């Protein structure tokens, strides 16, 4: 197991990876980013009133079978879906990475205060930080949303998944969704873009954000689907019908048997009750066959 210094060193490298991911997922924002060597981005804050959110790389226990870059990519992809806040750009991340390197040289630990210092250095209003740990083969994931100004943890999402990659990624997806939903609720924005800034502005008002879904989304929304295959429906109908018939003959036969003793069948005189017995037997056989067919159909349908 790597020690804390190794993890911090990895974290520094991953800042650069995260920056690349951010740029790849936010081509429009890349144009806003000043060229390398330009003045610090503090000058762009007044022009862009959106809250600035610093998305820090995940801290991942090496026993967790998920690459840190994958966890970062999931988080960044989710954060990029809302335009009501500004994701910290490459330059800020590079500065934070440099600061992180200083921290490592000085041996400063990465606690909440350390995270807040990173946020302040990047001139962020909020920051998102996630961890992935391993507890006896079960992965425990935590995601926190911190207000850099007040040091308040505005939102904390935690969860577990069995230590298989197949189930950890959906957990990360869900947690990123939870964080994104919190941001949308808090900032009152849609997933399509920024809400009009609350501050007075000389610029024309942006388009209203009341419409929840764009036409494109409507067009691509999945259509309602037929639930089961015809084979399953047929087998299910046969099973249900046979079962109903078998139960009804069984109940009717039992009622006649108990309440009409004179009609009880004998070898010499089978009587009408024997018909119920034969019908019930046939129906039971049909139920058994259709039940097996239904099971086979379900298995085939689910394969």
């Amino acid at each position, binding site marked *: 197991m790597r020690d804390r210094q190794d993890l911090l060193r990895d974290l520094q490298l991953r800042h650069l990876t995260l920056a690349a991911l951010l740029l790849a997922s936010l081509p429009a924002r890349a144009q806003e980013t000043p060229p390398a060597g330009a003045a610090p981005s503090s000058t762009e804050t007044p022009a862009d009133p959106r809250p600035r959110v610093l998305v820090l790389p995940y801290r991942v226990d090496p026993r967790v079978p998920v690459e840190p870059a994958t966890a970062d990519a999931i988080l960044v992809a989710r954060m990029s879906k809302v335009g009501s806040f500004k994701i910290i750009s490459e330059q800020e991340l590079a500065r934070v990475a440099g600061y992180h390197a200083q921290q490592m040289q000085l041996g400063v630990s990465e606690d909440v205060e350390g995270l807040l210092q990173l946020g302040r250095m990047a001139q962020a209003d909020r920051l998102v930080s996630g961890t992935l740990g391993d507890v006896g083969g079960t992965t425990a994931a935590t995601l926190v949303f911190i207000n850099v100004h007040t040091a308040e943890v505005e939102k904390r*999402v935690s969860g577990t998944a069995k230590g298989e990659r*197949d189930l950890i990624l959906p957990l990360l997806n869900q947690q990123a*969704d*939870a964080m*994104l939903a919190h941001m949308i609720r808090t900032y009152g924005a849609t*997933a399509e873009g920024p809400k009009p800034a609350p501050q007075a502005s000389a610029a024309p008002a942006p388009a209203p954000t009341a419409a929840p879904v764009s036409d494109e989304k409507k067009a691509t929304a999945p259509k309602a689907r037929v639930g089961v295959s015809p084979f399953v429906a047929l087998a299910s109908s046969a099973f249900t019908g046979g*079962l109903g018939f078998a139960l009804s003959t069984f109940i009717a036969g039992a009622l006649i048997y108990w309440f009409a003793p004179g009609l009880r069948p004998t070898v010499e005189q089978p009587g009408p009750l024997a018909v119920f017995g034969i019908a019930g037997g046939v129906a*039971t056989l049909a139920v058994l066959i259709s039940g097996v067919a239904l099971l086979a159909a*379900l298995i085939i349908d689910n394969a």
Partner: protein
Amino acid sequence: MTLKGPRLLARLAPLLVLCALAACTDGDGSLDGGPDAGAPDCVRAGGQLDCSEMCSSYCAKLVRCGVQSGGSSCTEDCRTLTEAGASTESYQCVIDKTCSEISNCGI
């Protein structure tokens, strides 16, 4: 010769089959952990998108697969996102896949 035993068994067989089916399926006819048959989709009612049914299925599927999350309401978060215009495809994907396949359901 008494035939009570086999007769009783034959009459109880349908119930046994029914119970077995109910025990190993998700209640909608699909096998445990498998894709949900007839997965619900978002519906548009009165101009508003209602994804509550789809989100319930999505979150129930995660729980069945062993993904447990605390501190947040999965269904509520899912509704917030989908009804605000986020794509429903990744949620539908989880519903449509088996537990061992849901990691492929995009980011």
